């Protein structure tokens, strides 16, 4: 007998997403679990981990935030290869404010986030009209230029960098600040991308000419998306400046550009949650592989390749599909 695979939404999914008729605690849990799980994980992890892995958790949060920032840009049709630009600009903003003016981190981190986002938007404003690979190239080059400018002109301490920043009150404060911001950004911007505003951004990625035809100035919206992504990245930089109590040329390192992209691709682009999930998998894995010494990067690379070939849709999309839908073999009737 001829059969084919049928794919249908679970009844509980239809009830919870379309008509909101939840009949039992189980169904409420079905709806709430995917939202509660990351919250619980983020709140509990700092308590459960040792001092070394707590530091790893900080870089997980930073990579996750940068990956979300990359994902927002990618969903607006701008594939950035320069998350390091956002990170570095934020880091230098807060570093300079703290070092020269002696402002406290309570002020420098929020100001540097907004100011960094603004500076990045202004820097990239002239290239907003570029599409595809051209935009990517420019974003890749700008952090490299900025490093050399700092080195050559010796501003902000030149190659030495600025050290002696005011530290954050405690490790717990660092951990919970990063987790709180991660959760806020994740849920907030997921909500935003689902709203009508997010629809315009996604439309620009899908078919920018049709969006122009709807009477929307896409460059204004692209600039807004750039500011949002820039501010998220700049927060990461400003935050890490105060964690390390140092800001220097490494803030423009290529790692901050590449790791977030890897996280977003492995986790599943286009959902923000996928980017976060990817960071929570890739960064600890990279740490766990330290035991292999020189082979670490090789193994890491092999894992990435295997993942992209075996599960090109991304982990999050796969989980989401299995969670919401069932597949079964049905007979083809004639």
């Amino acid at each position: 007998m001829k059969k084919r695979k049928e794919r249908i939404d679970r009844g509980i999914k239809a009830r919870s997403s379309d008509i909101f008729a939840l009949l039992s605690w189980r169904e409420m849990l079905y709806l709430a679990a995917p939202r509660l799980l990351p919250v619980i994980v983020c709140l509990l992890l700092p308590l459960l981990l040792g001092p070394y892995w707590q530091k790893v958790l900080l870089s997980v949060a930073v990579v996750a935030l940068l990956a979300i920032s990359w994902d927002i840009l990618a969903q607006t049709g701008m594939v950035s290869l320069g998350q390091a630009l956002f990170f570095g600009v934020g880091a230098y903003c807060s570093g300079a404010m703290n070092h020269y003016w002696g402002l406290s981190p309570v002020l420098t981190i929020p100001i540097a986030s907004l100011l960094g986002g603004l500076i990045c938007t202004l820097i990239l404003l002239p290239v907003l009209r570029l599409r595809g690979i051209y935009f990517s190239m420019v974003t890749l080059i700008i952090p490299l230029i900025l490093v050399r400018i700092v080195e050559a002109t010796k501003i902000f301490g030149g190659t030495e960098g600025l050290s002696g920043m005011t530290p954050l009150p405690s490790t717990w404060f660092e951990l919970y600040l990063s987790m709180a911001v991660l959760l806020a950004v994740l849920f907030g911007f997921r909500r935003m991308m689902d709203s009508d505003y997010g629809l315009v951004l996604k439309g620009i990625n899908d078919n920018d000419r049709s969006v122009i035809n709807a009477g929307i100035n896409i460059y204004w919206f692209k600039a807004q998306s750039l500011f949002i992504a820039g501010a998220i990245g700049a927060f990461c930089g400003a935050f890490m400046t105060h964690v390390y109590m140092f800001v220097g040329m490494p803030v423009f390192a290529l790692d901050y550009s590449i790791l977030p992209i890897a996280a977003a691709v492995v986790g599943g682009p286009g959902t923000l949650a996928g980017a976060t999930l990817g960071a929570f998998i890739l960064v600890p894995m990279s740490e766990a592989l330290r035991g292999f010494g020189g082979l670490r990067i090789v193994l890491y690379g092999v894992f990435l390749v295997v993942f992209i070939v075996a599960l090109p849709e991304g982990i999050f999309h796969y989980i989401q599909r299995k969670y919401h839908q069932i597949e079964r073999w049905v007979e083809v009737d004639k």
Partner: protein
Amino acid sequence: MLEIENLMVFFENALALNGLSLGVRTGEIVGVIGSNSAGKTTLMNTISGLIIDMRIKEKRKGGERITIYGNITYDGEDITETPPSDRVKQGIVLSRERHPVFPESSVVENFKIAGYLRSKSEIQETMDFVFTLFPPLTKLKTRKAGFLSGGEQQMLAIGMALVVRPKLLLLDEPLLGLSPMMQKAVVDAIVSLNRETNITVLLSEQFARPVLPVVDRAYVVENGMLTLSGTGAELMDNPEIKAAYFGV
């Protein structure tokens, strides 16, 4: 030449083709007439094998989304699971819907890319033939294909399929978006290429009026199922066809 038996195609849970059977004999022009969403394009993609490529890509995106059942026999050989590139080598060439050309390349370059399987002299020969078939293209040899008008692009697209020297030419909505004048020119060209080069043509179209007079036989498809078939003249006189496709 081409024999299709009980073809069923599912896109996820939607049934696009439902037990469709049809045959094409060597040297014929056969029309597949149907309104929007009848399944014409799916049929064309299934015969040309593009759907196999689509199935692989959808599978990469997650899960099996496209299911194909039935048999396609070409020259006595079962080609249901043959990849599209091999089908082109066997002589089945599709000119896709909405005349996709390479917009950044010139007209002549487009022909060269399309004729990758053929030798230079063969390409030149067919190109000359195409230029006699579609005289307006002659003046546009060096123009970027993206700057051609819709009708010119359609001529180019049919020409690109011809450069491969098909035995069976599949035309998916060749008249889409063309003025009645243009439609007539394209239909005339299809007839004369069928006469002169003896290429078998299977074309799908929703404009029945210009197509039915010239086809040897035609099938009418609705919702993925065959509803009527017969010679072009028979269908012209059929009252149902008149009501549904001629608007009288």
